[in-house]
């Protein structure tokens, strides 16, 4: 094995580092460190000049480890790694030491200690660099097809967006019809457009699209594999079909909460949910003259803390619908707060009030009470503005309930190795920055599967998910950064801790040359190191963050304390 030759490049970053840290001292110090055969300072290591110096010294000095002490790896690491690569050095033999954000900028008034700290950080970086190993990145082809699970508005929109790019799409819908939850909805707020006007053409386009194969009355039964190459089994009427896809979009939607036990729902026939109300009257039928709509049923309570987001709008829509049918109708909306966000819905709310819908605020501590023996006859409520109890005679009570996660989300989340949030909805990788991705690569989410979302939101999320899902297929290749876990099969005892700890299902126990041992599926591994820390014997290691590398950093720092080194 060639001798380890570490080159250290210490950056002044103009005055940013050099103005506080005595960079030449750090360079001098670096030269005394074990295995360091070359050290220099640069005004800007990231400049053309600095980068070419790295490349030159790799060639001239035969450097086989590069340490740059400058800014944060979060910005320039790729740049320096590329320079190493250009000089023929595997880019994983590079180590970054941050002496700007973590040193000069935060100890501006103590140059002596800042310099000392910079030296120690370089010492630690060099100690780790000595144990770096060249790595190869895992690459695999992406199968040019996508799976969309769920044939509601979100799923259909995503399928079309993908198919229109020429990507083969498999759309799996559990019902016998496309359309999802809103099939039961008669009109859509705030346009009051007939749902069918939106749904029918969308479904037709999906069914007719040559790039989309639609599976109706079907469910995904199993998923294995990883980004670029998922094997999916879909069951239709007892028949199982295997599909191969590169990416997957989850658009399974949600369902309306059936508030059994609340407001005598399930007990009295004329206490119904919004969706039931719409289903009941969509086909015609006598509209009741006096209706109380109770909002926030089963929402924003300790057991279900979230707001359904558009249930208020639904209540307003149905209230308006009734008032327009029968201007003499008496429609009460009992609410906690009215979430009429955005210009259109606020106007919609105004219109409801103009039409004579009565909005009454109730207190969650003293909720309305439904009266009547066989049927709901009246609703008693503490009127907050009037400060007294009123009893409203009604022919019907409509309960506005939030969307809730589907019961079988858990099954799908296990299959796809993606997480669910505490309310049972699918949980995105990052609320703000990766809102429609999962941290499991190649799987995306849109629509009400993620949280209650209305149609415009579902559609835009669907387009976003489709765009994301098409990227790997377009690129044709996925590459995994070589910081993944590896198991030393000779010393693994197969205790299975790693299997439990892996958030991505990337580790399995398998029978191999050395008996049963853990095995890491590199394509699924995200390089978090959860499994490595859980491995008692140290058989599981993370490339670039091995026990040996981290321990050498700890040791290098501890060594400073023995007084032998400055």
């Amino acid at each position, binding site marked *: 094995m060639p001798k380890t030759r570490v080159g250290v490049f210490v950056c002044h970053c103009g005055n940013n580092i050099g103005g506080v840290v005595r960079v030449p001292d750090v360079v001098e110090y670096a030269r005394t460190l074990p295995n360091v055969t070359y050290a220099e300072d640069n005004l800007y290591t990231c400049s053309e000049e600095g980068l070419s110096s790295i490349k030159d010294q790799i060639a001239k000095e035969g450097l086989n480890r590069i340490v740059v002490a400058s800014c944060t790896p979060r910005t320039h690491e790729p740049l320096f790694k590329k320079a190493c690569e250009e000089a023929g050095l595997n880019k994983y033999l590079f180590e970054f030491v941050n002496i700007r954000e973590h040193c000069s900028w935060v100890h501006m008034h103590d140059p002596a200690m800042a310099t000392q700290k910079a030296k120690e950080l370089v010492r630690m970086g060099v100690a780790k660099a000595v144990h770096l190993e060249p790595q190869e990145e895992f690459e695999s082809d992406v199968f040019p097809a996508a799976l969309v699970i769920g044939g509601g508005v979100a799923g259909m929109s995503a399928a079309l967006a993908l198919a229109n790019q020429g990507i083969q799409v498999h759309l799996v819908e559990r019902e016998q019809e496309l359309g999802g939850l809103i099939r039961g909805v008669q009109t859509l707020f705030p346009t009051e457009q007939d749902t069918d006007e939106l749904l029918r053409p969308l479904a037709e386009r999906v069914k007719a699209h040559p790039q989309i194969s639609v599976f109706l009355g079907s469910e995904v039964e199993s998923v294995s594999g990883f980004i670029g190459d998922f094997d999916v089994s879909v069951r239709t009427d007892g028949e199982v079909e295997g599909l191969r896809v590169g990416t997957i979009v989850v658009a399974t939607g949600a369902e309306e909460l059936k508030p059994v036990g609340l407001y005598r729902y399930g007990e009295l026939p004329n206490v119904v949910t919004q969706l039931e109300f719409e289903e009941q009257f969509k086909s015609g039928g006598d509209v009741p003259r006096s209706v109380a709509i109770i909002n926030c049923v089963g929402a924003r309570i300790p057991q279900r803390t979230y707001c359904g987001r558009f249930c208020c709008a639904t209540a307003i829509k149905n209230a308006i619908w009734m008032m327009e049918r029968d201007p003499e109708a008496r429609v009460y909306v009992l609410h906690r707060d009215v979430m009429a966000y955005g210009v259109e819905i606020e106007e919609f709310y105004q219109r409801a009030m103009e039409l004579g819908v009565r909005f009454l605020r109730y207190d969650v501590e003293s909720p309305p009470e439904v009266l009547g023996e066989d049927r709901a006859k009246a609703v008693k409520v503490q009127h907050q503005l009037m400060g007294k109890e009123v009893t409203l005679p009604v022919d019907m009570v409509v309960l506005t309930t939030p969307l809730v996660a589907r019961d079988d989300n858990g099954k799908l989340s296990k299959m796809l190795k993606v997480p669910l949030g505490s309310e049972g909805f699918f949980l995105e990788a990052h609320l703000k920055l990766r809102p429609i991705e999962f941290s499991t690569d190649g799987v995306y989410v849109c629509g009400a599967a993620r949280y209650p979302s209305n149609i415009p939101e579902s559609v835009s999320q669907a387009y976003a998910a489709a765009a994301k899902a098409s990227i790997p297929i377009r690129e044709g290749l996925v590459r995994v950064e070589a910081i993944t876990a590896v198991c030393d099969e000779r*010393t693994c005892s197969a205790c299975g801790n790693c299997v*439990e700890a892996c958030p991505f299902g990337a580790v399995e126990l398998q029978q191999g040359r050395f008996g*049963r041992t853990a095995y890491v599926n590199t394509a699924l591994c995200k390089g978090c190191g959860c499994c490595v820390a859980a491995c008692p*014997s140290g058989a599981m290691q993370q490339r670039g963050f091995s026990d040996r590398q981290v321990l050498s950093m700890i040791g290098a720092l501890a060594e400073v304390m023995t007084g032998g080194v400055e």
Partner: protein
Amino acid sequence: MQDKLQEVVRKLLAEGAVEYFIGYCQSSQPHRAVPCFVSDESEVEKLVWGPLCGQNLSKYVLRANELEGKVGILLKGCDTRAIVELIKQHQIERDKIVAIGVPCQGQVDGRKLEKALGVSLEQVTNVEDAGDGFLVTVGEETKKVPKEEVLLDKCFRCKHPYAFPYDVTLGEVVPFTIEADVGEYAAVEELEALPIEERRAFWRKQFERCIRCNACREACYACYCKECLFDRKMPRWLAAPPLLSENEMYHLIRAVHLAGRCIDCGECQRVCPVNIPLGSLYRKIQKDVAELFDYEAGMEMDTVPPLVNFELDDQDPFL
């Protein structure tokens, strides 16, 4: 019981149901029973059962992985917790073992007996169970020693997976109970109550004494790793000399590794030649695992080990 045991084992060997049977036999020193491996019917009569069989034999089943056939083993209720964990941790298949359950009325702690009698343990020639006490013979004299004075610590908190699927039982195997005023974690709580400097001083003294003979590790059922972290050469976690800092590291890392694995069998403390109260270290881990994560090792077959599991609402003092 002993006769019944021998009868069962004789039958197992005659039928070829097991390659050998792991039980206890009398040591040349009358005050103790030691592990015994019986592969021939002629040796069956060596097998004994009594109050000197506190040792957890479970670790010995791992050898069955190298055999074509099965091994038979005598298991007290507490020992089965190790078997549950070994199966759970994929170290042995249930069907490699023929498990014989033995009803246990508590086991003698040699060190305690020595203290209670005030004579060296070697002078004890016989110990027999007698309900609420043990009949102990020293020389010509036999006297009854109350159980609460000499039981192994673990016997005061006897529990075992109730529905462990034994293949054969020598009687109804139920947890042993004793009326004694011993708290579940008494020894741990006593230490916890000390000021922190005194705890440090206490443990430093213990760890200083450690000669790193590795007996605690080798005797531990859970230390089945093909290569122990401490034996790795690259990186080397521990310096070879048994210096205080290294010993401290050894014991603390072991304690962490045993979180969710330690089944309180007491082997580590039993075998420690320098009497380090390892039980108090591992009991602490058990206590915290129970209190923080509501987990107890060896009780259930299908629970996820506590450190590779979590609840969204776990305590969070780190905000």
